[in-house]
């Protein structure tokens, strides 16, 4: 029975396997098809630190992210005096935005500060085939203990007496500037031995600052003071709205815990110091005590303090509120054109800071250029949008001949240097030539419009241009924008050549049919001549028929040669047609004479049989007519 069942199920298995295979293939195609376009864009490389401030002995993570290149070689050894940087592994990331997919390799390093100070992690050169990518320079500020950053709960000792859950607020800076973006970490830990579910929060409370939306938390297991905790880490950022001293937090959250029931039994003799002896578990006292106890707990952290300073005065003219550390790269496309042709100037601001206040770089000299409002596109490199690159595309049109696009400037405030920094790009060489100058007057274009009064003398100031006059005559009205081929009239007109073509075809067919009739007539005559010639060779018939048939053969051959009717042919025509002379001409005339004589006299003249000699002469004569 099982065998039979197996046999029955085999086709179904095969079908399901085929369906499964097709499904996998479609899924794989769907997964990998977009990757054909992944590497179409130019590869880019960025580097970020999980925190730009730390303390001695407290590591931070360095991530080098390469997007759009599959064969990049990561830097093996990054040497910075005072920092111990070690490679910890790599990961891959596929990101999709608006159906634009990008594929990235992320190389992770752990940076352990060995001493206090400000450290620069130099740009790293990454080889991708023929290209070399450079990461930006990173700055890490390492403080001595006590840390400069503000931690709500410096020792991650769980606040709860029963050590079930804890909340922790980590603000990476204690002193900041108005508008500066400060990374904040919210950590919620739950004893790994219990089941916990977050029902509300966490909420970051406080006034005087704005908070970014929190992404999904990272989840990992940490051991704190010998206990295992499942820790949820929420990363966000805050920005102070005004100067002053603020209290951030506390963090508040609610969670539902599945706590094992405690027995009323006395403490285990082995647990003298209340160390959570595993044998003190209620299971060993009462294995059938039932389900664990469900308890809702409020988790709350200690608040953190943040001192916010106002930005110093003497802001650069084009400062728009950007605070952080940035670099700028510019590009112009195309690099050659005519006056009035649009050029696209691309400027990419990369780094770390409040990108929402990063405005488009401005031209140092806009004379001779018309600028259009720029477009902006921000690509973040981290979860909270502090690190990344913002690209601006500005369309410029030159009003005069130009050899370069003037430098672009971008100003920001660097909180580490505590001063304003202005980035200035190099001028970019372009070739803008005259020609299609927009100053061509409509009068010159229209030809018939009013010409300028003085054309030879250049005027000092260009005259204001104006549009041409109204057309007041009743125009030719139409009712369609459709192209000619979409209008019925066009196809009606095509009937004329169509009729001509049909007439031409009909005429040609008639001609062919007529040619065919003539051919049939000629074939019939040829067949008749052949038939008669066969009879003559056989010597059938009496002399009157014999000569009549011979004369008919001559008439047919002559008629075929001259394209005339056979009955119109006489001896002279036949002689002339075949150009006979001498004896043959006489024989032919004799043949016609005897044929006529026998036909019109009514009786044969002489023997009833044609002599052989005569017959041979006649046949020779007929054979010679061709």
């Amino acid at each position, binding site marked *: 029975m099982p065998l039979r069942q197996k046999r029955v199920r085999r086709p179904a298995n095969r079908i399901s396997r085929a369906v499964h295979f097709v499904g996998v293939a479609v899924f794989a195609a769907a997964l990998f098809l977009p990757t054909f376009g992944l590497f179409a864009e130019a590869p880019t490389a960025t580097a970020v630190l999980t925190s730009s401030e730390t303390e001695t002995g407290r590591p931070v993570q360095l991530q080098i992210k390469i997007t759009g290149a599959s064969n990049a070689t990561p830097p093996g050894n990054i040497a910075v005096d005072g920092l111990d940087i070690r490679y910890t592994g790599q990961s891959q990331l596929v990101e999709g935005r*608006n159906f634009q997919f990008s594929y990235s390799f992320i190389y992770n390093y752990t940076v352990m500060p060995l001493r206090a100070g400000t450290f620069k992690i130099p740009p790293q050169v990454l080889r991708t085939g023929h290209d070399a990518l450079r990461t930006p320079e990173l700055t890490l500020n390492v403080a001595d203990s006590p840390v400069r950053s503000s931690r709500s709960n410096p020792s991650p000792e769980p606040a709860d007496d029963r050590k079930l859950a804890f909340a922790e607020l980590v603000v990476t800076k204690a002193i900041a500037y108005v508008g500066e973006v400060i990374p904040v970490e919210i950590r919620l830990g739950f004893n790994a031995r219990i089941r916990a579910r977050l029902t509300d929060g966490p909420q970051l409370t406080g006034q005087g600052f704005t908070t970014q939306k929190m992404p999904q938390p990272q989840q990992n297991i940490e051991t704190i003071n010998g206990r295992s905790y499942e820790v949820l880490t929420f990363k966000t950022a805050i920005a102070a709205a005004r100067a002053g001293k603020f209290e951030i937090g506390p963090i508040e959250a609610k969670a539902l815990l599945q706590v094992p029931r405690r027995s009323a039994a006395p403490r285990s003799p082995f647990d003298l110091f209340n160390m959570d002896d595993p044998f003190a578990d209620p299971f060993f006292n009462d294995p059938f005590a039932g389900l664990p106890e469900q308890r809702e707990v409020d988790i709350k952290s200690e608040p953190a303090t943040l001192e916010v300073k106002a930005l110093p005065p003497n802001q650069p003219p084009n400062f728009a509120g950007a605070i952080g550390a940035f670099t700028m790269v510019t590009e112009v496309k195309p690099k050659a054109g005519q006056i*009035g042709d*649009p050029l*696209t100037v691309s400027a990419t601001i990369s780094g770390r800071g409040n990108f929402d206040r990063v405005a488009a770089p401005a031209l140092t000299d806009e004379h001779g250029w*018309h600028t*259009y*409002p*720029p*477009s*902006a*596109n*921000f690509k973040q490199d981290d979860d909270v949008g502090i690190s990344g690159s913002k690209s601006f*595309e500005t*369309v410029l*049109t030159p009003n005069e001949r130009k050899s370069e696009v003037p430098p672009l400037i971008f100003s920001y405030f660097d909180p580490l240097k505590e001063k304003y920094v202005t980035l200035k790009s190099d001028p970019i060489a372009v070739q803008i030539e005259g020609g299609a100058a*927009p100053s*061509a007057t*409509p*009068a010159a*274009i*229209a*030809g*018939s*419009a009013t010409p300028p009064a003085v054309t030879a003398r250049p005027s000092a100031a260009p005259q204001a*241009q*104006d*549009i*041409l*006059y*109204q*057309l*007041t*005559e*009743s*125009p*030719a*009205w*139409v*009712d*369609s*924008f459709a*192209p*000619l*081929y979409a209008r019925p009239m*066009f196809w009606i007109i*095509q009937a004329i*050549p169509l009729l*001509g*073509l049909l007439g*031409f*075809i009909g005429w*040609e*067919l008639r*001609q*062919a049919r007529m040619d065919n009739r003539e051919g049939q007539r000629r074939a019939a005559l040829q067949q008749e001549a052949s038939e008669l010639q066969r009879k003559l060779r056989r010597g059938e018939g009496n002399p009157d028929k014999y000569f009549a048939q011979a004369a008919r053969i001559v008439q047919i051959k002559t008629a075929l040669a001259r394209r005339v009717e056979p009955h119109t042919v006489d001896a002279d025509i036949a002689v002339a047609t075949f150009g006979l002379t001498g004896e043959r001409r006489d024989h032919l005339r004799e043949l016609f004479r005897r044929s006529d004589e026998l036909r019109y006299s009514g009786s044969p003249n002489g023997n009833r049989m044609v002599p052989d000699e005569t017959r041979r002469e006649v046949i020779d004569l007929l054979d010679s007519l061709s």
Partner: protein
Amino acid sequence: MNRRSFIRFPAALVVVMFAASSPAAPANANRDAIFAKANSDYAAGHFRQAIDGYESLVRNRQWSASLFYDLGNAWFRAGEPGHAILNYERALALNPAHPEAEANLRLVRDQARALELTRNWPTQHLAFLTVDRWTWVAAAAAWLALFVACGLWFSSRRSASWIFVLSLAFAIGASAGFAIYELKNGGESRALAIVTAKEVPARLATADNANSVLVLPAGSEIKILSTRGDWIYAALPNQLRGWVQTNTVALVRL
């Protein structure tokens, strides 16, 4: 059919034709009156009234290149370069050889800093004839090829010169067809539209807060690729693509 009825039939036909054509006369007179009134409004400096008059003719499908040209002038005087450029484009769509419309379009486009779509190589080099003229070339070449092909089919001997003529006609017809295709997908596309509002942002997605791809000045050209609700996905100048709101653009070809 007797003699009397033989005479009566054409007479009745003439009467019917006259009756059929007679309602057009008042309509034409009314159309010309509206056009003249709009022209006089324009001359008096009442540009909004002139626009209303011209637009009423447009709504009634009474179109002409000169009407759109005059309407473009009125919009320009009313301070709406986007609408002015749109109507100059419409005038040129109806009559590509309209010198006044061409001159004013160039002037207003320069003043408004309107952006133009980048024409591809075939469109640039085939635009010396319009689609309609290429259509005539294609039709003439096709008929010539058909006549020659029929002649060769029925002919007992096929001369090399007629075969050459056939090949040439076929090549010209194919080239004209290619030109029609390219121009209909390029400069003379039905999807060509003009930005009528001022400083219209083209966005990456169909949301008002989506990142901006390009800010389009009034009168800029776009090519509509698809429509989704109140948004249009369009090919933009500078080889860009983005979403713009439907009420900020208008099609050139009605």
